[in-house]
């Protein structure tokens, strides 16, 4: 129905733009990871030194593990908060469904930075929470371990990614044909069995999509550790940032970025395969 000229005209500009402004930059990242920096100058000498440096330096490995740990915790907590909420709204909220849905969306419109800042004002040693605890005479001295700890990073990131996890979950729960659930009830399955054998398996694609998103984005986060995390919760992206900034070792920073990128792409590929298998 559409002519060759039409197809050509619509395809060429985005192809060119994406090739120049996305493909070339990502390729430059890859290229840098095989180069070297000597006395503040980047040398275009192809080698694998950055990658071996990366895996032999215990600091990087430790930080990488910490980042993965934080990302896994955030993903788990987001699911723990997001799944029951999505389940409740899809199956039990009745006519209030739409308004509740909007209420989940609204926090998404509040900037990331601002929400991080809000947590900072809540958790700080002169913050709102400490003020509240002292007001109720639960504590006498300010509790100082709340802010500038991995706990604060996990809390802030969970707050940010819970709505992101909720959205695909809710969509997949809404897609479950209600007659399947009713059939399960009618055939004598308890609500618990129905949930485990019918609803949960059918919601796996949404669960997976949300979990991947939360994991990948919290793994690559570097603002939360600066804002609320402090030195004890430095994450892998903070190292990248400092290598591109004051430490000035772009090639090494690029090598870490390529590792994050590969991890992300592999994960996305795996979840895509699984989603295809599980979708109905």
């Amino acid at each position, binding site marked *: *129905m559409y*002519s060759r*000229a039409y*197809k050509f005209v*619509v*395809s060429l*500009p*985005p*192809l060119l733009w*994406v090739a120049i*402004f*996305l493909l070339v*930059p*990502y390729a*430059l*990242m890859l290229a840098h990871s095989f180069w070297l920096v000597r006395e503040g100058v980047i040398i275009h000498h192809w080698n694998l030194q950055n990658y071996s440096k990366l895996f032999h330096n215990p600091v990087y490995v430790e930080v990488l593990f910490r980042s993965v740990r934080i990302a896994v915790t955030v993903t788990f907590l987001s699911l723990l*908060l*997001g799944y029951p*909420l999505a389940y*409740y*709204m899809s199956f039990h*909220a*009745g006519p209030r469904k739409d308004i509740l849905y909007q209420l*989940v*969306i*609204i*926090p998404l*419109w*509040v*900037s990331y*930075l*601002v929400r991080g*800042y*809000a947590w*900072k*004002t809540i958790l*700080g040693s002169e*913050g*709102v929470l400490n*003020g*509240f605890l*002292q*007001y109720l005479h639960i504590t006498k001295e300010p509790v100082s371990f709340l802010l500038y700890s991995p706990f604060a990073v996990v809390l802030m990131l969970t*707050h940010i990614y*819970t709505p992101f996890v909720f959205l695909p979950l809710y969509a997949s729960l809404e897609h479950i044909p*209600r007659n399947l*659930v*009713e059939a399960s*009830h009618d055939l004598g399955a308890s609500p618990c069995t129905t949930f485990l054998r019918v609803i949960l398996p059918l919601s796996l694609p949404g669960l997976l999509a949300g979990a991947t*998103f939360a994991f*990948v984005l919290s*793994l*690559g986060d570097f*603002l939360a550790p*600066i804002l609320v995390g402090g030195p004890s919760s430095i994450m892998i992206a903070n190292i990248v940032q400092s290598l591109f900034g004051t430490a000035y070792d772009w090639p090494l*920073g690029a090598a870490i*970025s390529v590792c*994050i*990128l590969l991890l*992300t792409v592999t994960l996305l590929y795996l979840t895509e395969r699984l989603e295809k298998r599980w979708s109905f």
Partner: protein
Amino acid sequence: MRATSLGTNRPTFLSVYALVVFAFLYLPIAVLILYSFNRSGVGGFPPKHFTLSWYSQLFADTAIWDSVLNSLLVAVGAVVLSLTFGLLAALALDRATFPGKSVFRRLVLLPLILPGIITGLSLLMFAVFAGVQLSLLTVFLGHGTALISVATTELFAGLQKMDRAQEEASLDLGATPWQTFWRITLPNLRLSLIAAGLLIFTLSMDEIVVTIFLIGRDNTLPQEIWSRLRIGITPEINAISTLIFAVSVILILVWYRIRTRTIGKQAQELLERP
């Protein structure tokens, strides 16, 4: 009836749980807004002495308003850029076949899925490689390019829902592809275009991760907030955040008005059909 037990019976535990999750989601926002009116600043409990002085201080702060203006410029530019290329990309993905199409699809979506630091740094390297000085222009190009992903996703969904028969009829009746595009395709995509535009606008206004690496001398609003946050906490930030929140909520409401009105109009048109 089993169906009623599904629809109306609300297990108490789940309701309470849902309430707790909502409380968690809204707690920081509530605190933020509340303390923007607190005379003794951020922190402590309970907040006392209502004041608007942080707002008046904010309105006198020219650096903030310059950065708001910069952010608006960047966001409007990013909306135009990403909607243009996103629309073409969605049309290409929906209608054309070319070698590397699946690679293209994934590549367009990458900035949406990858941690922002990777896209930001890649674009920084590209700017250095191309010998371009960092400025609002590089921020605009970065936002526009990264957000093509959002535009493409929204508009592709819109195209998939669209009825092809109208376009076919238009072409069969002798309209050129160009006329068909302007008179049939675009008007049919109106809602998706508005939705994508609003979304891209707010995302660009908020963007910090890519911006950090591409910013020159002139700050965008999030960048200005970021640089102040590193010095310390000031209730001025609560005030500006409250204002941004209010604007976001208004934008959402505007969007619902547009949508319900169009849906209402469409329903009316359908009813009035002979």
